[in-house]
């Protein structure tokens, strides 16, 4: 058992068979006498190679957008810009005109650019990887060398490489690749980000030592500890089971038979498949902001309807909770002309905008939701509004839902009214949770914002990071108050903050009485496993003890 240390870039673990990725060397032929070079023909070769590379980059972009998401696909837009960069193209053309063959002209120009970036730190050095990626595409075209197909690796492969380009990584099949480890590279490189989005365990920047690992060895990649272990012993293999708990596709209950739903938080369509693959019982938080970002105009009713029905189709017979548009605060959308406020987290965001300046957007969203609720899978649709602080807001939302229903009715359009809920993110909402629950079907506690507002501690401010912790007694009591009040009024209560996905807190949350926990898909199996081990009476006793604690440290010692 040999252990190598690097930087964990996807906090997951996997075991498999090592396989080195050795892309074919791109060896340049000797440089001919400039007088013998036909510059016009070389210019044509360069243009052809550039056209082929551009087509391949666009294809990679579209594949990454579908598999991973638009954010990570954006790196390929930068690749296209490097490919057509006037400085690079100018230098290459000039060199060709001086009697240099196209491949040497490309290699020289890119070598200069790469050297410029490599001398710098962090993000800049990572741009050198992007340039290499683009250069190699051009050289493969010019030298007629095939690329290695990483999309068809055998199942259970741990891929080892000197470095991986974003193109290499985006082509990986997450079902086949058990892990990735690289000699170079940092956590914020595009390759690392793409691996993370594909939920492939990854450790980068292991150093030259990694080259000691031979093809065929059994290798464990522990992306949490940042370790690569060769021939791991049984104990080590078992220790990675934390987030790698077996996927349980059916609903789970506690050891004494209390049902708890374990759902996924989903922020864009590309996350639907990973959520079903990890056995989520539906979606507990479907963020609709992705529909509005990176564009110049808001999505129309049809586009929203389609996004909602796609989510319903991904989870037939499971509940999908769609959150209405939650912009403002830290989430900006240029074309929405959001207010510029000195204190945006305490300003117009979420439902405050939906009932105010953005009433038209809210109406469009409600129309799409009510129409989706009338489709075949629509019975399982639920809708919740963010940032509720007053009962009046819920009453206003309900009357707008009725108004939209009346309009659709008059238009002769099929519609149904989905289950309606509110997010409990403000202390105000937790104080009036009973009244909210009276008017709604469910509440969902957003612990990230609730903690921020209860503790008056900015979630982005490291200076108050110790305050931004949901295990402070004040936050736990706000949660308890919410759950108790909602249950008294016959509404169910979920939780969709980070806290819900921490398996070490599952017993406490069961004890607090939550009916549903919604989290990043990656932690669904571990939380399901914990629920099955939990006895609800013992959990309730634990919750009572924790709620009696007066300090954070007392809570910590109860939970140990």
């Amino acid at each position: 058992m040999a252990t190598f240390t690097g930087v964990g870039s996807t906090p997951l673990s996997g075991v498999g068979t090592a396989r080195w990725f050795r892309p074919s060397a791109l060896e340049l032929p000797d440089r001919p006498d400039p007088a013998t070079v036909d510059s016009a023909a070389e210019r044509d070769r360069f243009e052809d190679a550039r056209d082929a590379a551009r087509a391949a980059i666009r294809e990679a972009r579209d594949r990454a957008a579908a598999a991973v998401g638009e954010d990570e696909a954006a790196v390929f837009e930068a690749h296209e810009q490097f490919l057509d960069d006037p400085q690079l193209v100018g230098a290459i053309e000039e060199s060709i005109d001086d009697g240099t063959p196209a491949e040497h002209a490309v290699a020289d120009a890119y070598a200069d650019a790469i050297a410029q970036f490599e001398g710098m730190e962090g993000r800049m050095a990572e741009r050198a990887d992007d340039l290499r990626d683009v250069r190699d595409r051009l050289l493969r075209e010019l030298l007629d060398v095939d690329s290695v197909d990483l999309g068809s690796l055998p199942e259970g492969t741990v891929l080892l490489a000197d470095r991986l380009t974003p193109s290499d990584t985006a082509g990986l099949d997450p079902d086949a690749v058990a892990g990735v480890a690289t000699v170079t590279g940092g956590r914020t490189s595009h390759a690392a980000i793409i691996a993370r989005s594909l939920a492939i365990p990854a450790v980068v920047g292991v150093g030259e030592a990694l080259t000691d690992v031979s093809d065929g060895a059994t290798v464990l990649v522990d992306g949490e500890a940042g370790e690569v272990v060769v021939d791991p012993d049984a104990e080590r293999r078992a220790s990675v089971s934390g987030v790698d708990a077996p996927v349980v596709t059916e609903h789970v209950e506690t050891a004494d038979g209390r049902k708890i739903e374990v759902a996924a938080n989903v922020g864009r369509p590309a996350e639907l498949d990973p959520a079903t693959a990890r056995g989520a019982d539906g979606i507990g938080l479907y963020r609709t902001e992705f529909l509005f970002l990176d564009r110049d105009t808001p999505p129309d009713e049809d586009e929203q309807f389609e996004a909602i029905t796609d989510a319903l189709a991904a989870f037939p017979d499971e509940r999908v909770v769609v959150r209405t548009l939650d912009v403002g605060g830290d989430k900006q959308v240029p074309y929405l002309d959001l207010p510029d406020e000195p204190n945006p987290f305490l300003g117009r965001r979420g439902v405050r905008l939906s009932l105010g300046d953005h009433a038209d957007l809210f109406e469009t969203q409600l129309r799409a939701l009510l129409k989706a609720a009338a489709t075949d899978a629509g019975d399982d649709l639920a809708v919740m509004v963010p940032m509720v602080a007053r009962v009046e807001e819920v009453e206003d939302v309900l009357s707008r839902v009725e108004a939209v229903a009346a309009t659709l009715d008059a238009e002769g359009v099929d519609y149904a009214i989905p289950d309606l809920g509110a997010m409990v993110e403000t202390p105000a909402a937790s104080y009036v949770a009973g009244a909210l629950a009276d008017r709604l079907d469910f509440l969902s506690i957003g612990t990230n914002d609730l903690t921020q507002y209860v503790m008056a501690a900015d979630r982005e401010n490291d200076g108050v990071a110790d305050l931004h912790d949901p295990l402070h007694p004040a936050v736990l009591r706000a949660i308890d108050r919410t759950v108790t009040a909602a249950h008294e009024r016959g509404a169910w209560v979920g939780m969709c903050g980070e806290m819900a996905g921490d398996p070490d807190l599952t017993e406490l949350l069961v004890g607090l009485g939550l009916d549903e926990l919604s989290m990043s898909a990656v932690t669904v199996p571990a939380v399901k496993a914990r629920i099955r081990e939990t006895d609800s009476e013992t959990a309730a006793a634990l919750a009572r003890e924790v709620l009696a604690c007066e300090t954070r440290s007392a809570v910590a010692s109860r939970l140990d």
Partner: protein
Amino acid sequence: MERTVAVVPEAGLHARPASKFVQTVNQYDATVTVGRADDGDDGMVDANSMLAVTGLNVEHGESVRIVAEGADASEALDALETVLTTPVEEG
């Protein structure tokens, strides 16, 4: 025509914001150069070059000076200012 703008996106003038910036420059006829506000005329580079723009290594919070010449210079400056003052949603 020129303008000085503080860079809002968390990533600085790298990655996606840089990409958007260059894309935007290419949508206009105006000839655009960009540089760090403190670096003076010598630090200005061609804004239509991804290589040159990312090579500036401008971080979030730094100010850049954008100079545009041509018929649609003013529209180009407006569009570029929007790119640099729009925060980008991370992850």
